[in-house]
């Protein structure tokens, strides 16, 4: 049981880390690190739900997240260009701070929402954090890649809670289909865009 408790903490931490990385790296031309962060989020979701769902469902969730990142990053494959860590910059620090402020805000309202949406606190927190970070990422970004990562984060946040509320295979299938279709749509939109959406 103790091990399972730690999986929740690690899962939650991975989700927060993933969402923050995507938000901090907003509008960076090379979005490969952000896509890896999105995969980290889905690993986090799996760890968070490991106590509740069967391995089949968890594998489906993980594969959806990974494939979503792969589909969205179809045009981002650039093996000849090494991944470089970002330099610390004022915008990044400000976004990190904003992320923390949002986390505190969520902590303050979470107990109120938990009264009417009965899911474990850790899951509700991660869900709200993903939705808020997704909205913020979407609103502040001008690049299609980050706008779609924002929408995917919003949907992942919803999925995290709704999976616990409605335990229906049909709904789960719908959510997976919608997740993948949004990623596919993002890849399609970017493929026709001349907005410098590719790593250089």
């Amino acid at each position: 049981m103790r091990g399972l408790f730690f999986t929740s903490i690690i899962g939650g931490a991975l989700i927060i880390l993933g969402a923050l990385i995507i938000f901090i790296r907003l509008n960076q031309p090379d979005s490969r690190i952000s896509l890896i962060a999105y995969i980290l989020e889905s690993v986090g979701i799996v760890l968070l739900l490991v106590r509740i769902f069967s391995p089949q469902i968890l594998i489906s969730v993980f594969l959806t997240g990974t494939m979503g990142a792969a589909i969205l990053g179809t045009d981002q494959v650039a093996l000849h260009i090494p991944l470089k860590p970002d330099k610390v910059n004022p915008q990044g620090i400000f976004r990190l701070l904003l992320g923390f402020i949002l986390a505190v805000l969520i902590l303050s309202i979470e107990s109120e929402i938990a009264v009417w949406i009965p899911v474990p606190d850790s899951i509700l927190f991660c869900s709200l954090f993903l939705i808020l970070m997704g909205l913020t990422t979407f609103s502040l970004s001008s690049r299609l890649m980050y706008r779609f990562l924002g929408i995917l984060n919003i949907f992942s946040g919803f999925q995290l809670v709704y999976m616990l509320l409605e335990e229906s295979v049909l709904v789960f299938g719908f959510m997976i289909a919608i997740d993948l279709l949004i990623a596919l749509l993002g890849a399609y939109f970017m493929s026709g865009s001349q907005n410098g959406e590719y790593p250089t």
Partner: protein
Amino acid sequence: MNAPLLWFIIPFFFGAFLLLFSESKRLSIILASIVCLFLIAISATVPINSMVIIGKNSIIFTDSMEILGRTLSLERAAQPLLAFFYSYAFIWILFSAAVRVHRFFVPLVLMETALVIGVTAVSPFIYGAFFVQLAVLIALPIFWSEKMKSGEGIIRFLLYQTLGLIFLAIGGWLASTVELNPSDQYILKRTMVVLLVGFIFWLAIFPFHSWIAILMDESCPYLSGFVINILQFSSFLILLYFLKSYLWLRTYDPLFIGLRMIGAIMLIIGSLWAVFQKSVQRLQAFLIVAENGIALFLLGLHTTQSFSVFISLLFIRMIASFFWALAVKSLPENFDFGLNSLQGLYRSDPFISLTLIVSYFSTVGLPFLPGFPYQATFLQLAFSESSSMGTVLSIGYWLLIAAGFRLAVTLLHPAEKAAGKAETANQRALLVIGIAALFLITFFPEPFNRFIAQIQSQFTLISGG
């Protein structure tokens, strides 16, 4: 054989199958039309839950099927609606032969129509919200490839539809918990707010109404006309199912007061914006916002008469919007939808101009056009609610009329600015059919009224009839 398989599963997959033949527009139109006509004929002649005898064989035509533990069910009472949906799809498909549309448009119409049937069939009904989201997602690639501007409206559309789905799905779940204990005011109020936010995103309610104008202004009018119409209709359908399913919701007075207030605000904002628009597509978008306001107000009145007017206006709007979309699509290829560029269009393209004017005023309701008796009843009901409400709503209504007159004056202007002759002989014929159809509904309203009564009979719990 069962009804959901026939009207939902088969047309959806047939639409997907038609994508393979989309290179040949004529073939896909013929095949899709045959499917639509077949489905219309079945819905008009074979009652659901009956035995069909073909030669020595018999088929029991049941009303439901199970998918992954959930039920899809179409009752006999839904048959007029099924016939309407496939007739609607049929005219969009058939008339697309006369205009230049994306090669995937015809399969898309079939798939979207099937998904809307799915909204009416799925149980619990809130899963219909997922069908609507799927309908949005399959339409967006075509929107993107046909876009004329930056595509901002398309991305906003996706975001707002996704947010709407999230709130409605959570709200649907909360509504089922309220059903267990309706006296719990704490949960009840929060459920109402969550549901309201969901519909704010989907029905382009102020302040989240901008997407509809941006989307219509930057995409193919024929495509956006179909998708927005069918999605707005589905959103209203889900709202009606909410009201039909939950007694506590139907008896919760603050909801109806709220609907009336929101409706009035939407009418005022939509009509005010409509007056100042410089693009025909944006004008149509704000007409939709204003008409959504009228619809919500009528729903908020919660009487048999107001419900009848609500349903009638919804269908009239769908029919008139089709001819509007056809007329705008008949304009020259590189037309920017600007009202200024339409000045004096009547001289070069009289049929397009007349169709634009007639379809706009059919929805808004000028005398001798289909919307008139219903809009007059709406104003009468508004004044019977209260004189101040009546005054506010009639100001909004007159602003809509003013926006229409502005359009008419521009089109009929003596100084011609519009670029050349655009309408072809085929388009002229179709536009004449459109104008005639709208006048026919006005002068021979009996079949239309009978149809509305059949639809209304499904929702007697809401209308109180």
